[in-house]
C-alpha cells in the first residue's frame, strides 16, 4: 500500500512524462499507453484525458483504492522523434525490469537532457529537403537552388522569431511570405519558376499535427484530434496568406 506522499510523487512524475510526450509530437493513445505502462510497473492505475493545452491525470493505488487527480499544462516543445522513441523505450524498461521510481526519474532526466539537434544543422537540412521537394515536383536545377536559399531565409527568420517568442501564427505568415518572396526571383529566369514558388513554403506544412490529428480521431480521441486538425488547418491558412501576399505582389493574381 502506498502513502499519499508516494502516490503524489508517482502522479507528479507521470504527469511530467505524459505532458512531455504530448508536447513533443506524440499522438494521444501512445502517450496514454506509455504512461499506463509506467503506472503498471509502479503498481498504480493511470487514467489520462488529454486536450490541446492541458491533460487531466488520475492515479489510483490498486491496493488502497486511494486516488489523486491533477490537471497539467502541456508544454510547447520541439518535435523530436528520437526523444519520443527513447521515452517509449523507458516505459518498457520500467515494466520489464520493475524499476523503482527514483531510477525511472534518473533515466528520464538523462534522456531529456540529451542535446537537441543544432539549429544550424536543422537550417541546412531543411533547405536541402525543400530543394529536394522542388525536384520531386518537377523543378529544374536553377529552381532547386533558388528554393534552397529561399528556404534558408524563411527558416532562419522562423528560428529567430521563435527565439523571440513571436506569436506562431504570425511566424508562419511572415516565414511563408519571406520564403516565397525570395523564390519569386525565379520568375526573372528561364526556369521552372512556378514550381519554385509553390515548393518554397513546403517546409512550413505542419505534418506532425495533421498525422496526429487523424490518428487521434481514428483511435477515438475525437476532441483532441479535431483540436489538432483545426490547429494544423489554421497554420496552413497562415502559409496560404503569406504565399498569397507574394503572388498578389508579383503576379497580380493568385493563379
Amino acid at each position, binding site marked *: 500500500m502506498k502513502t499519499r506522499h508516494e502516490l503524489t510523487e508517482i502522479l507528479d512524475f507521470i504527469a511530467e512524462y505524459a505532458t512531455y510526450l504530448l508536447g513533443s509530437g506524440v499522438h494521444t493513445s501512445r502517450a496514454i499507453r506509455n504512461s499506463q505502462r509506467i503506472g503498471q510497473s509502479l503498481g498504480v492505475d493511470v487514467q489520462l484525458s488529454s486536450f490541446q493545452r492541458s491533460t487531466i491525470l488520475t492515479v489510483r493505488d490498486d491496493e488502497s483504492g486511494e486516488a489523486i487527480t491533477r490537471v497539467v499544462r502541456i508544454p510547447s516543445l520541439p518535435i523530436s522523434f528520437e526523444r519520443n522513441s527513447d521515452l517509449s523505450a523507458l516505459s518498457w524498461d520500467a515494466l520489464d525490469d520493475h524499476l523503482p521510481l527514483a531510477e525511472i526519474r534518473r533515466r528520464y532526466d538523462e534522456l531529456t537532457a540529451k542535446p*537537441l*539537434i543544432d539549429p*544550424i544543422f536543422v537550417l541546412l537540412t531543411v533547405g536541402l529537403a525543400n530543394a529536394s521537394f522542388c525536384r520531386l515536383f518537377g523543378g529544374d536545377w536553377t529552381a532547386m537552388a533558388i528554393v534552397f536559399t529561399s528556404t534558408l531565409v524563411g527558416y532562419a527568420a522562423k*528560428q529567430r522569431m521563435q527565439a523571440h517568442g513571436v506569436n506562431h501564427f504570425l511566424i508562419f505568415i511572415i516565414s511563408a511570405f519571406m520564403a516565397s518572396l*525570395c523564390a519569386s526571383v525565379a520568375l526573372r529566369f528561364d526556369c521552372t519558376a512556378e514550381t519554385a514558388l509553390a515548393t518554397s513554403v513546403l517546409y512550413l506544412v505542419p505534418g506532425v499535427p495533421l498525422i496526429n490529428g487523424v490518428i487521434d480521431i481514428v483511435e477515438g480521441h475525437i476532441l483532441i484530434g479535431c483540436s489538432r486538425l483545426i490547429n494544423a488547418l489554421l497554420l496552413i491558412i497562415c502559409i496560404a496568406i503569406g504565399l498569397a501576399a507574394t503572388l498578389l505582389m*508579383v503576379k497580380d493574381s493568385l493563379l
Partner: protein
Amino acid sequence: METFWNTIAAYNAATWPAQLVLTAIGVLLTTLLVKRPSRGVRIAMKLYMAALNFWIAGVYFLVYCEPRQYHSPQALFWAIMGCIWLYDLAVKHASLERTGHHTTFARVLFAMPFLYPLCSLALGRTFPEITSPVMPCSVAVFTIGVMLAFSERINIVLAMFLCHWALIGLSKVYFFGIPEDYLMACSIVPALYLFFREYIQAHEGKATKPSVRVLNSLLVILCLIIGGFFLFTLLHQLDLFAEI
C-alpha cells in the same frame, strides 16, 4: 538585357552626386569603426547600413528599375534587409566592435564596391552604363565585409538574405551574361563558410548534435557544391564569350 543596362544608366546619370556622398559616408564610417570605434560610430554605422538598404529599395529598384519586370519584390527584399538593420540596432544584437578576424579578407571586400566600376570599364563599358559602388551587389559585398570585420554575433537572417542575393547574382551571370556579378559570387562562398564556421566554433564547448566535426564537414561539402555551381557558371560564361 538592354532594359537592364538602360535602367543602370538612368540611375547612374541621375544619382551620381548622391552616390558619391553615400560612398564618402561609408568610407568615413568604416575608417572610424577601425580607428576610433565608439558607441556613436557603431549606431551611425547601423543607421547608415539601414539607409543604404532603403536607398537601394526605394531609389534604385522602385524608381529607376521600374521598367524592369518584377522590380517591386526586389525593392521589398532590400527594404526587409534595411528593417533587419534597424531591428538589430533596437535589440543591440551585433555590437559592431572590431573582431580582429579575417582582416585581410574583410579589406578585400571593402575594396570590392570600387572594383565594380573598374570591372565595367575594363569590359569596355562607359559611364553611365557601368556598375557603381551604390548598387545592390556592391552594397551586398560591403555588408558582408562589415559583418565579417565587425560582428562577433552574425545576424543569421541577414547572412541568409545575402546568400540568396549572391545566388541571384550567379544566375544573372549564367542567364544574362553580366560578369561583374562574379565579384559578389566569389566573395559569398568563403564568407558563408566563415560565418558558419565561426558560429560552430562559438558552440564548440557545448554538447551539440551532430558533433562539431560533422557540422564542419557538412559545411565544407556545401561550400564545395556552391563552388561547383560557380565553376559551372564560369565555364558556361566562357563558352558564351567564345560564341560572341
